[in-house]
Structures are given as C-alpha cells and as structure tokens.
C-alpha cells in the first residue's frame, strides 16, 4: 500500500478513498489492549488506512460491546475488527456485516461463527499451560500453587485458568493447585487477595497471575507480605513485571504479542478489503520470558510497556 502517514487521525467524515477499519475490542484501558491498539495504528499508518479502536470498560460488559459493534457498523466501515466477549451475542450483527459486505477480522480470541475471514489470536489455553510448565519446573514438581485470576466469566480468564489447572493436573501430580481467586485485574485488589492467600497458606510455593493486573498484584502482595521464596509466574509484559523479573521477584511470564495482533489484524483487514485470500487462523503466538532471555532482542521486540 501507499506509505502516507497520519492516516490514523480519526476525524469524522474522512475521504472516501481512504479505507476505514472499525475495531471493536474486548477492552480499552488495559495495557494489553493499548498495545493491540498501538500495533493496529502503526500498521494502519503504513497502509494508509484510518482506524477507530473502542472497547468496553470490563469484559463483563457484553451488552455495551454489542452497542459499540452496532455503532461501528452504522459508520459503514471498509472492514471490521472484532474481539468478541460473547460470540453468540454478536451473531446477528455479524450477519448484518456480512450482508453489508463488510469483511470481519476476528482477533484475540476466536469468534464462533464462519463469518470472520480470519482470526488473529493467541491460544490462551496453550499459553497458560506453558506458564504451568515453567512453574512446575521451577518448583521441582511439588508444592502448593495459588492462582490470582482476572475474571471468572470472560473467555481469556476461563481459558488461562483452565489451561493452567488442566496442565498441572495432568502433568504435575506433586503440585496442589488451590481454588483460583479472582481480583478483577485490579492491582490493589489482587495484592490484597495475594496477601490473604499467603496468610492462610503459609506453605505457598508459587503464584500464577493470569494477566497484567493479577500478576503485578501478586508481585505487590508478595513484596508487602515480606515473604521470600515464592515463585511468581505472570502473564503479559508490563514494566512492573519486567522490573520484577529483572530483580528476581518474579520468575518469569508469558507474553503474548499484542502489537503483532494489532498489526496482523489491520494487515488482514486490508487484504480482505482488497479481496485477497487469507488463512483461516493467524497465530500471533506467545512466548515465555524470564531473566535469562529478557534482553534477547527477539523477546525485547515482543515486550510492550
């Protein structure tokens, strides 16, 4: 495509020649989604497309996401990027998109529908299993492990929780996994929960935090409790986690590649607009990072802060 910059400016009523991609995400304010947005914007600037990026405040706000999707369609975009909180709830609107001949690119997690031309996503279950693998290895295959999860009903929360627990159950008989606790992804609340877990299970050996807020909360909680020797495994890559890994408080974390998700999403959307063919699934991948590989340029490229 052309390389005109500043294309991501989002003033209404832009020129009709410039393709417009409306992106409705699962979230907006969290760092992860901001990274997706950044990736999308970068790619859009390259491709000369205009994008808008919106998402509900929490992953429980299904109706609000549906409203956002409706509004996005009202603007007759050239393509739609969509990360469904609940695929079925969006089915009717996806049909509408299809009938309006608006190609839909799913991202982050799959949309249970054959309408999306492709899906650019992380396999959350596999990613959490990877975290479990490392946790088990770090603990030498035994001990009590707690989970601080960001949500009990959202897809990502469920998949990461189950992915972690299932792997442990299947592969690490020496490890006891406590009932997951949910902190809503709020750092302070997750920290308080972590401290309660430590208080009620003084023998705790490891804690898994299922997203950025949960992981940072776990780190803060462990620090505040003054307890040493707890192995923390996190998810996502915020500055707080990177620092914690560097200083040894956190053992390591899984990073997805949110910037790539955003880029792939826009790339795919542009291809769809141009009528090019696309694979059904674009795996954006996930990676384990810890003290040993954190400065590796390949990993550095994935970390977003």
């Amino acid at each position, binding site marked *: 495509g052309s390389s005109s910059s500043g294309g991501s400016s989002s003033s209404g009523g832009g020129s009709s020649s410039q393709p417009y991609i409306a992106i409705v995400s699962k979230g907006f304010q969290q760092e992860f989604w901001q990274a997706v947005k950044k990736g999308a914007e970068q790619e859009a600037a390259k491709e000369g497309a205009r994008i808008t990026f919106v998402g509900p405040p929490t992953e429980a706000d299904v109706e609000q996401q549906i409203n956002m999707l409706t509004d996005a369609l009202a603007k007759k975009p050239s393509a739609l990027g969509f990360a469904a909180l609940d695929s079925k*709830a969006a089915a009717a609107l996806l049909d509408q998109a299809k009938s309006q001949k608006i190609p839909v690119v799913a991202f982050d997690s799959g949309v249970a529908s054959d309408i999306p031309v492709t899906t650019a996503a992380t396999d959350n279950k596999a990613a959490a299993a990877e975290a479990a693998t490392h946790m088990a290895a770090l603990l030498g295959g035994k001990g009590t492990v707690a989970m601080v999860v960001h949500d009990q009903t959202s897809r990502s929360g469920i998949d990461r929780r189950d992915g972690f627990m299932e792997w442990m159950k299947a592969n690490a008989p020496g490890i006891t996994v406590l009932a997951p606790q949910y902190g809503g992804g709020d750092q302070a609340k997750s920290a308080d929960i972590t401290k309660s877990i430590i208080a009620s299970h003084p023998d705790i050996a490891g804690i898994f935090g299922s997203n950025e807020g949960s992981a940072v909360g776990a780190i803060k909680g462990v620090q505040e409790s003054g307890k040493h020797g707890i192995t923390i495994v996190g998810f996502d890559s915020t500055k707080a986690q990177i620092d914690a890994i560097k200083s040894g408080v956190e053992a390591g974390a899984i990073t997805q590649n949110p910037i790539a998700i955003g880029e792939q999403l826009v790339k795919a959307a542009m291809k769809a607009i141009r009528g090019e063919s696309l694979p059904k699934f674009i795996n954006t991948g996930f990676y384990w990072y810890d003290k040993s590989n954190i400065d590796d340029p390949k990993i550095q490229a994935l970390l977003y802060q």
Partner: protein
Amino acid sequence: MATLMATLKTSAQRLVTGGVSSAVKDRLQQSLAFASLIVIFAFFSFASPDFFTYSNITAILFSTVVIGTLALGTTFVIITGGIDLSIGTGMALCAVMSGVFIVNIRLPVGVGVLSAILFGGLIGLVNGFNVAVLKIPPFIATLAMMLVAQGLALVISHSTPIYFNDASGYVAISTGNLIPGVNFPNAVVILAVVAVVSAVLLKKTVLGRFAYSIGSNEEATALSGINVRKWKIIVYAFAGLFIGLAGVMISARLGSAQPATGMGYELQAIAAVVIGGTSLSGGKGSIVGTVIGALIISVLNNGLQITSIPQEWQNVILGGVILIAVYADIIRKRT
C-alpha cells in the same frame, strides 16, 4: 367584616390567576424539557451523516432499552426518597433465572419469562422489606442486595453464560420485529409500552400518589392514615418487576444470560432518572423526564462513537455535556 371579605376575595383572585399562569408555564416547561436532548441530537446530525439514519436511530433506541427499563422502575423508588443499587446485578441474576427456568427446567418461554419477571419482583420485595420493615437505609439495603445478587448469579450459573439456543422465540422478545420486514426491534416497543404504563401508574393511581407523598414527607403521610410500610414494600417490589423485565430483555438480546454483567448499570439508570429531573431526596419526578434522561445518555454514547471521537475523550465529553444539559435545564426552570 365587610373589608375582610373584600380582602379575601381579591386575594383569592390573585391566587387563582397565579395558578392559571403557572399551569401554562408548566405545560411549556414540559415540552421544553426535551430541549437539551434535541440540541444534542441536532448537533450529532450535523456532525455525522451516519447519525440521523433510520438504522442508527433504531440502534439508539435499542441501546436505551435495558437502562431505560431499569430507570423506569427506579424512578418510583427514587420518588419515595429511596434508591436502588441492586438493579444492575439484580438484572443479571434475573437473566440467569430466566435461563434456569427456560433452558434448564424447560418451562415454556412465556411461563419462564413471567417467572423471571416475578423473580425480579421478589428481589424488590426483599429490598422493600429491608427498607420498610427493618428500616435499613435504602442505600445499604440495596447495596447488600447488589452484592448478593451478583454472587448468586455466579453461583446459580456456575459462572458460565446460559445460552437460549433451543428456546425458540426467546431471542425474538428483544430482537424480533413486530411488523415483519420492518426492522424495528420488539424491545423498543416493549420499552415504550412499559414507559406509558409507568407514566399512568405514577400519575393516575394510588401507587404513584403515595410514592410522591412518601417522598415528600414520610411522616405526614403516615399521619394521614396511610400504611407507609406497606406502600414502600409495594413500590420496591414493583420496581423489582422492572429488574426482572430488564433481565429478560438483555438476555433475549444477547441470546444468553451473562452472569457477570450488570455492575455499573445501576449508576447509569440512576443517572438517567436524575438527569430527567427526579430529585434524589424524593417527592419530585416524572416518567417523561426519565425517558429523556435515558435517551440523553444513549444518544451521547452513540453520537460520540459515530463521530469517531477517540474513546479516551468520550467520557470527558460525556461528563461535560451531561453537566451542561442539566445546568441548562436548571436555568430554564428558574426563569
């Protein structure tokens, strides 16, 4: 005595004329209450060609349904001087119950829907009991219910959505079209009907009259021989029916009962009520106002999206416009 009579007469006249002119003023005010809404509406219509289209207007109305339904019921509660924080998560619980009734127990859709609505009434009844009989401040009583409902929704649904796939007709409650071929969702029709019924109940029945009376002066109402306790319970239970209805409408729209949703809806619904001119200290308020309040919120939400305002700015603008709209209304009423 003669002079007295003369004075009485003139002051009576003064009163009466005062009364008439104020009635005209009232009528005028009522129609002007739309002003803020219309200005906002006009603005967005100019700002974006995609705003004032049939499908977008329908979309706005559709997006008003859930908050609107909750706001209607809450209007009654707020007029009594109370508040109901349990409407948001209560709605989620009712949606789950609707799923239990229709999907799990396999009740016929009609019966299931009715049961879910009555379940909402039950939530309201408990709120009413706590407020009226145990004399727990409404804020606390309904906050506790908010937490309980949130927890129960998760417990009952095992924290997973309940899908209404097999319940034919359920989804149509919200998304179906009354007139085949005309894309106008049933949910909006239902909201309109419910709004009219609410307005009649509020203005023309004992329920409404006593709601105003209790909110205006609870003690005086009791001294006038009215069973305040009973009527408060009735008002809360009645408002509960709207929680149930909202639960049905949202789950029908989404095709599933989402147990974790609902938090924050109470604030939006209460905001709609208050923007509509109902006083949180009770005794004052109207259904028309609430509908306008709910529309102002959803028109703003929609318009800001449609005009592609960056999301981080949307709330800033939303807050500012709400402030201006309410201030304009205050100014208008003052003069």
